[in-house]
């Protein structure tokens, strides 16, 4: 498995921490699945120290933490959020989200490249949430990104991989870059498909957190990404239009 900014991941599942029915179920989903990376965010601190309680839960899980810049619409906002996240979470990793469209939550790739360049210069290790566009991908790498995270489908849509052709092209174009499908996964089969395409990890949240049984779904997702990874390594056969008998014909008894 490829290294993410010099860090080995024990498995290819990155899980979000939002939208679970309760903190206890969030914790169980991580423990049952073994997901090793947790995405987190920063929000206004209210009374009662909810932030500390949540942070304690994440710390106890012993997972790698990937803070995000969710909801940011400008370079300045994203860069400032990243700096605040680095101080709070004590990591140089940042999942850089720069939202360009309110309905689709499509990344604003122009601002994304600019913010990635600034943050790389500031010493961050940027995980850019991007589209499948290869030119944008190239620009992100030039800006200093060593990981790319194209969307499978819009965040929270659960539609799976909208454009497997483009994701396959990205894999072929950047064979040595760690690639993560981020967002849009709804089912384990979607996650397996991403891994079968040769992706290095899958990042998902809603599909697990909003499932009727998030703990069970987290396990299913882990099994799916592991199966997909093994399948990619096993060099799958090509699909064909016509049947081809698998049982040998030679030696067949004459009984007609």
């Amino acid at each position, binding site marked *: 498995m490829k290294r993410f900014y010099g860090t080995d991941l024990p498995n290819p599942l990155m899980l979000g921490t939002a939208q*679970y029915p309760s903190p206890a179920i969030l914790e169980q989903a991580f423990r049952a699945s073994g997901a090793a990376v947790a995405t987190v965010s920063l929000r*206004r601190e209210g009374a009662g*120290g909810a932030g500390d309680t949540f942070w304690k839960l994440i710390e106890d899980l012993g997972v790698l933490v990937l803070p995000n810049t969710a909801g940011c619409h400008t370079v300045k906002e994203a860069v*400032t959020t990243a*700096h*605040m996240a680095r101080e*709070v979470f004590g990591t140089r990793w940042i999942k850089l989200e720069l939202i360009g469209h309110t309905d689709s939550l499509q990344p604003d790739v122009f601002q994304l490249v600019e913010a990635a360049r600034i943050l790389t210069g500031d010493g961050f290790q940027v995980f850019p949430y991007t589209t499948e566009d290869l030119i944008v991908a190239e620009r992100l790498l030039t800006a200093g990104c060593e990981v790319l995270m194209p969307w499978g489908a819009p965040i929270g849509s659960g539609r799976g991989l909208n454009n497997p052709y483009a994701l396959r092209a990205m894999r072929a174009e950047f064979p040595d870059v760690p690639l993560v499908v981020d967002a849009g996964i709804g089912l384990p089969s979607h996650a397996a498909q991403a891994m079968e395409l040769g992706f290095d990890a899958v990042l998902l949240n809603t599909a697990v957190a909003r499932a009727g049984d998030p703990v069970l779904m987290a396990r299913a997702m882990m099994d799916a990404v592991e199966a997909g990874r093994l399948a990619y390594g096993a060099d799958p056969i090509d699909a064909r239009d016509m049947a081809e008998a698998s049982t040998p014909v030679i030696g067949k008894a004459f009984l007609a």
Partner: protein
Amino acid sequence: MKIVINGESCEVVAGTLADLLEERALAGRVATAVNETFVPAAQRPACKLQEGDRVEILAPMQGG
């Protein structure tokens, strides 16, 4: 002195950002910004607050 904390107008006594966190009993793991500019923890004691300042105090939260 009247300032805005996390979008809400507040009357405060504190003269610096560090004092403000103490006054509001926000001793936990937070990050701060004043007037949309990040203020690292080490600079909070030297960060003097002025009338009308917009202070953001952010804490760890669930995210995707």
